[in-house]
C-alpha cells in the first residue's frame, strides 16, 4: 500500500479510529496494529507476508536464546542463523538474477558456453529495510547492547510496524520496542504535528518529486541520444531533487503517521544537500542506513582503530556494499565506490590540506559537495554504464553536438526548484522544522499547510511508487 493512495487514506482512518476507540486495551491495540501492518504489506502481495513471518520467527527465537545462552560458540551459532536467514532472503530475492548473470559472464569469458534463463524473481517490497532492522536486533542481542523484547507481540510489531516497514527509517530495537511496552497515545499537539508531517511528506512525494521533477529526469535518463550539456545537467539535478523529495517524503510521512499514534521515530534526513563535505552528507542523508552501516559493517571491519590504510579499506568496502544494498547492479557499486572515494579524499584533505570552514566559504563548500553528489547520481539513475558515460561526457562537454531535448520552461522550472531546495537546505542546516514552526505565526503555518494540501489535491498523483521501495 502506498502512502500516496486513496486506499491508504481509508486504511489510516480505520487504524486511527480503532486505535483511539475505547474498545481495545493496549495489548489488543498492538495486535490490531500488527494485523494492520500485515494487511498494509499484504495488499501488495499477500504470499510475501510469509517472508516477514519467517524473519520475525527466526530473529525472535535467536534473540530469546541469545538472552540466556552463555556458551560463546552457541551464541555465535544463533547469530549466524539469523544472518544466514536474513541475508539468504536478501541474496536470493534481490541478488539472485544479478549473481546468475555475472556467473554466466564469467564462465563465458573463460570459454565455457553456458546460458541460463533469468530466474525472474519477484523482489519483495522493502526487504532490504526489514531484514536490516531485524538483523540489528539479533546483532545487538549478541553484543548485549539491547535487552530481549518482552513479548513476541512487541517484537513482531517492531519488525512489521507499518509506517516504516517498507522504506524505513531502519529503527533499532531499543528505539522502538521499548515504546510498545507502555500504552501510547498522541497528545493533541503531537497528533496535529504528525498530520502536518504527513502532509509535508506527501507534498514532497506527489508535488515536488512526481509532478515537478520526475518527468524531466525520466526523459533525460530515458533518452538514447547523446545529450547537450545543459540537458544532461538539468536531468541530473532533477533526479537529485526527485530522489531526495521521494525518499525524504516517505520518511517524513512515516514519522508523521507514527507520531499520530504516539510513537516517535528518529529523523532520517537533515537537509543533506547543504552538507559541508561527505562525512557531513552521510550524517544527513538516510541517517538510519548510514548508522546501520557504520555500526554493523564499518566498525566490525576495523573502523579507524587499525591504522589509516585499514580505515580507508573499511570505508571503501562499506560504501561499495552500501551501493550494492541499493540495487543489484554494478552501477550502484560505482555509486558507492564514488562516495567511498570522496570520503577518502576528504580525510586526506583534512590531514594534509586542512582549512577552517567559515560562513563565507561554507556555502561554496556546500555547493561543491552538492555538485559532486550530483555526479554520483548519474550512476545511480542510469540503467547502463553506456548511458552513465554518455551523461558524464555531456555534462563535462566532452562531446559538444548533443541533442537538446528539454524546452526552456523545463530548464527554468528545474533550476528554480533545485535552487530553492539548495537554499532551503542551507538555511535549515542547523535547525529543524519543529524549531522553525515554533517561531512561525500559526496563521502563516496554516496558510503554508493549506497551500501544500491544495497543490496535493490538484496534482492528483497517479500513485507512483516510492523509489526506495525497490531497494
Amino acid at each position, binding site marked *: 500500500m502506498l502512502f500516496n493512495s486513496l486506499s491508504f487514506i481509508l486504511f489510516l482512518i480505520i487504524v486511527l479510529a480503532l486505535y483511539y476507540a475505547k474498545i481495545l486495551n493496549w495489548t489488543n491495540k498492538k495486535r490490531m496494529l500488527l494485523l494492520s501492518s500485515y494487511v498494509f504489506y*499484504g495488499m501488495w502481495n499477500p504470499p510475501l507476508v510469509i517472508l516477514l513471518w519467517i524473519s520475525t520467527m527466526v530473529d525472535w527465537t535467536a534473540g530469546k536464546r541469545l538472552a540466556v545462552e552463555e556458551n560463546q560458540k552457541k551464541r555465535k551459532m544463533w547469530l549466524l542463523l539469523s544472518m544466514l536467514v536474513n541475508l539468504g532472503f536478501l541474496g536470493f530475492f534481490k541478488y539472485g538474477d544479478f549473481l546468475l548473470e555475472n556467473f554466466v559472464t564469467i564462465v563465458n569469458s573463460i570459454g565455457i558456453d553456458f546460458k541460463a534463463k533469468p530466474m525472474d524473481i519477484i523482489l519483495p517490497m522493502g526487504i532490504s529495510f526489514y531484514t536490516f532492522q531485524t538483523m540489528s536486533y539479533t546483532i545487538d542481542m549478541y553484543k548485549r547492547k539491547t535487552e530481549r523484547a518482552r513479548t513476541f507481540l512487541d517484537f513482531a510489531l517492531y519488525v512489521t510496524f507499518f509506517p516504516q516497514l517498507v522504506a524505513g527509517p531502519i529503527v533499532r530495537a531499543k528505539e522502538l520496542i521499548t515504546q510498545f511496552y507502555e500504552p501510547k497515545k498522541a497528545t493533541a499537539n503531537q497528533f496535529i504535528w504528525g498530520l*502536518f508531517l504527513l502532509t509535508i511528506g506527501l507534498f514532497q512525494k506527489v508535488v515536488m518529486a512526481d509532478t515537478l521533477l520526475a518527468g524531466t529526469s525520466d526523459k533525460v535518463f530515458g533518452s538514447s541520444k547523446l545529450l547537450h550539456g545543459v540537458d544532461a545537467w538539468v536531468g541530473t539535478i532533477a533526479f537529485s531533487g526527485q530522489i531526495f523529495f521521494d525518499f525524504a517524503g516517505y520518511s517524513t510521512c512515516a514519522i508523521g503517521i507514527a507520531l499520530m499514534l504516539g510513537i516517535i521515530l528518529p529523523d532520517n534526513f537533515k537537509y543533506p544537500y547543504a552538507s559541508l563535505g561527505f562525512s557531513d552528507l552521510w550524517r544527513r542523508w538516510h541517517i538510519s542506513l548510514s548508522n546501520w552501516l557504520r555500526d554493523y559493517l564499518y566498525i566490525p571491519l576495523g573502523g579507524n582503530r587499525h591504522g589509516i590504510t585499514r580505515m580507508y579499506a573499511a570505508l571503501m568496502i562499506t560504501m561499495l556494499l552500501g551501493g550494492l544494498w541499493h540495487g543489484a547492479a554494478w552501477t550502484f557499486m560505482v555509486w558507492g565506490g564514488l562516495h567511498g572515494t570522496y570520503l577518502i579524499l576528504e580525510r586526506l584533505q583534512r590531514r594534509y590540506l586542512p582549512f577552517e570552514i567559515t560562513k563565507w566559504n561554507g556555502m561554496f563548500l556546500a555547493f561543491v559537495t552538492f555538485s559532486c553528489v550530483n555526479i554520483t547520481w548519474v550512476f545511480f539513475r542510469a540503467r547502463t554504464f553506456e548511458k552513465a558515460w554518455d551523461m558524464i561526457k555531456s555534462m563535462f562537454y566532452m562531446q559538444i553536438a548533443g541533442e*537538446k531535448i528539454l524546452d526552456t520552461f523545463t530548464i527554468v522550472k528545474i533550476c528554480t526548484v533545485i535552487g530553492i531546495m539548495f537554499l532551503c537546505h542551507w538555511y535549515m542546516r542547523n535547525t529543524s522544522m519543529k524549531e522553525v514552526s515554533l517561531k512561525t505565526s500559526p496563521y502563516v503555518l496554516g496558510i503554508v499547510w493549506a497551500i501544500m494540501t491544495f497543490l496535493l489535491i490538484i496534482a492528483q498523483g497517479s500513485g507512483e511508487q516510492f523509489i526506495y521501495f525497490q531497494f
Partner: protein
Amino acid sequence: MKLKKSLVLAISITLIATVAWELYWRSQGFHPTLNDEKALWAMTRAKVETATKNDVIILGSSRAYFDIQVDQWQKSTGKAPLQLASTGSSPLPIFNDIVNNTNFNGTVIVGVTPGLLFSTTYPKAFPWERPQSKVDFYQDRTYAQRLNFLLSVPLQNNLVLMSADEEEWDDDIDLKSLLKRVNLGKRDTIPPPPPFYNFGDVSIPRNISMMPRTVTDTVFAKSIIDVWHFFGKGAPPPEKDATTAFFMKDVEKFKAKGGNLILIRPPSSGGVRMGEKMGLPRERFWDSLVNVANVKSYHFEDYDQFKDLTCPEESHLSLADANFYTEELVKILKEDNALTNQKPN
C-alpha cells in the same frame, strides 16, 4: 493551542480553494468523467475469467471503443459485451492475451483500424506497448491498486478536478498538465505535435462516447482531425506480413478452442478515409486479412446504412451515430447468425 489554529485555518482555506477550483473549471465547460485508465480496463478484463460461451468481447482500437456502445448492444442482445478495445492500440497483444491466458471460447469481435492493426509487432512500438501495458497491469495489479480504483470512481464521477488521464490530454487540469502548457520557447527545431484534447466520456461498464462538443464545435473537431493527420503523415510503413502472421497464429488457436471470431471495419471519413485508401487500401489489407482469417467479417462500406456515416473528427462516430451503428451491426450479425446464443429480435 497554536497548532489547532493552524489546522483549522489550513482546512478552511483548502476547502474554499478546492471548491473555487472545481467551480472555475466547470465554468470553463469541463464536466466530470471517468479516466480511461488501465485499472478500468483491468476490471473489465477480469470478467473474461468467468465469461461464458454466450459472452462477447470487443477488441480493437478507439474506433471499436467509440463506435460500439455497450448500452445499445445490451439493449439489442440482452447482454452487455466486455469492452476491451484500447485507444491508439493494435488489437493483437490483447487478443494474444485472451487466447493464450484464458479459456474464453465465446465471441471476440475485433475492430480493424488498418493503420494500427497492421502497424507493428515490435514490443517497444507505441501501438503495441500501450495495449501490452494494460495486459501487464492486469496480470501484476495489486489488491491496493484494485481498491484505489474502486475508491477513485465516485470521485472521478463527481469532480472535474480529478481529470488526470493516463492519456495526458492537452486539456487535462492536473498540476503537471497545467505546467506543461507554459511555453517559454523550444530549443530544438522539431515541430511540436498539434494539441490533443480529450473528446470522449468514459463510464462504467467500460464504455466511451464522443463528447457532444466534438459534434457541435467544428474548431474543436478540427483540432482532433489535425492530430490524426499528424500521426498519419508520420506513421512508419505498415508491417502487413508480420502482423498478419502473428494474428493468424492466435486466430487458429482461438478457433481450435471453439471460439467465434468476427472482424469488423468501423467507419472513417474525410481526409482520414482518403489517407487510408492511399496508404492502406482495402484490397491489400482488409480483404487480404479476411481471406486468410476465414471468419465472418463486416466492412462498413458494404452496407448501405453505414457507408454514408460521417465521423465529426473523421475517425469516430458521434454518440447518436455510434448507437445507430451498434444497433444495425447487431441486426446484421444476427441475420448472419454470427452471434452465438443471443436473444432473438
